């Protein structure tokens, strides 16, 4: 199940970055992937649609809220957290 979330998040980010999923490393940041603010908003939308969750994210202050977007691994962790909270 955890791997499933990871693969899906990576697929979403890969599509946004126009890269192959295999080229994406967990330690990379969105900046490393060349994803700008519009790309980020679109990726978050895709995550919400894919996992049927609501991501707390305001583009005016990306660091606010509990959704950590600092690295690919952080995003995967944040989505897993949202999923867990939803299922709880």
């Amino acid at each position: 199940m955890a791997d499933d979330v990871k693969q899906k998040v990576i697929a979403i980010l890969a599509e946004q970055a126009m890269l192959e999923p295999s080229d994406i490393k967990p330690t990379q940041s969105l900046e490393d992937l060349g994803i700008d603010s519009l790309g980020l908003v679109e990726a978050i939308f895709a995550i919400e649609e894919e996992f049927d969750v609501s991501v707390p994210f305001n583009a005016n202050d990306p660091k606010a809220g509990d959704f950590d977007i600092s690295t690919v691994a952080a995003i995967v962790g944040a989505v897993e957290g949202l999923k867990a909270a939803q299922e709880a």
Partner: protein
Amino acid sequence: MRRVVITGAGTINALGTSVPETLEAMREGRCGISQLDIRDVDRLSVQIGGQIHGYDEAEHFNRQQIALYDRFTQFALLAANEAIAQSGLTFAGDLAARSGVVMGTSGGGLNTQDENYRAVYEEGKNRVHPFVVPKLMNNAATSHVSMQHNLKGPSFTVSTACASSNHAMGQAFHMIRTGLADVMVTGGTEAMLCFGGVKAWEGLRVMSKDACRPFSATRNGMVQGEGAGMFVFEEYDHAKARGAEILAEVAGFAMSSDAADIVMPSKQGAARAIAGAVKDAGVALEDVGYINAHGTGTAANDKTECAAVADVFGRHANELMISSTKSMHGHLIGGTGAVELLACIMALRDGVIAPTIGYEEPDPECALDVVPNVAREAQVSVALSNAFAFGGLNAVLALKRA
């Protein structure tokens, strides 16, 4: 070149249903932003806006008119009526042929679209009212103002998102200045506070859920508003000859395109429009005492706008005052520059600078005199009104004291 002056002003917005009511609210730093009262509001994550509460269209228009007037057209007509009444002009004969309407709007008849899409998609109806098209079209407001007041000269609608009304007023200014018209009714109107209109903005993740706090370190996004601002622009000698009261002179206008990003603002693009308007007005940078900011309350706009002002004015940037009245009436999108021009007129005529309310904490990236929270008395001879649209289209007007 001919000189252009303002001889009438009208408005309806969340702060008031007339210019005097609106200016009083601005002087008092009153907030017109509140809980939205619209259909399906419970399905929105952003539930506040600068909505005109207690508005009853039946108080102003008859059944036949309501069948043809979307909310954005109604607002435009009410504001135009006030402006034209103040100017004292009636349009007939040669004057009618030399007078037109140029108005800005972004969403046009969005309520009409929203209601009718709902009818056919959600409710499954296969029939819509016969006037859907003439009601929703973006030029409907312009056309109804021209019909109501017999304005037969050049007339059209401008749509450049958040800069629509400044682009429109700039066009009106140029038309009189260059001799294409003697009088222009101009401004902007917007009625986007419907489920679809707010839902679309929500998607972009730039909206605040609690308040519009321009330039404050604690700002967290923009808040939508609605309404209209309309003005009578008139050739100077024409106004003088009939002894009209002159509210202010429209002295300069400049436009620029960032040619960079569809949503992120550019310091260079904004700076070119600001500097261009000052130059076009034929005044010195030091003469500018007040700027009505675009000041949306987003992280990106406010710091970029302050950097642009600092670049253009150098040391004088610390002397002038810059405030965002969006903190009070919200962002009227295609109508915003028109309502905000009222704050410029108030600064020039009454010596009162409208405040930026909701200001909580200084942001080192917005280190200008933003007139926090409380209006101020000051003598100003030149005022600017900034508008920087999504799509990187910038339009800045320069007004001079009459």
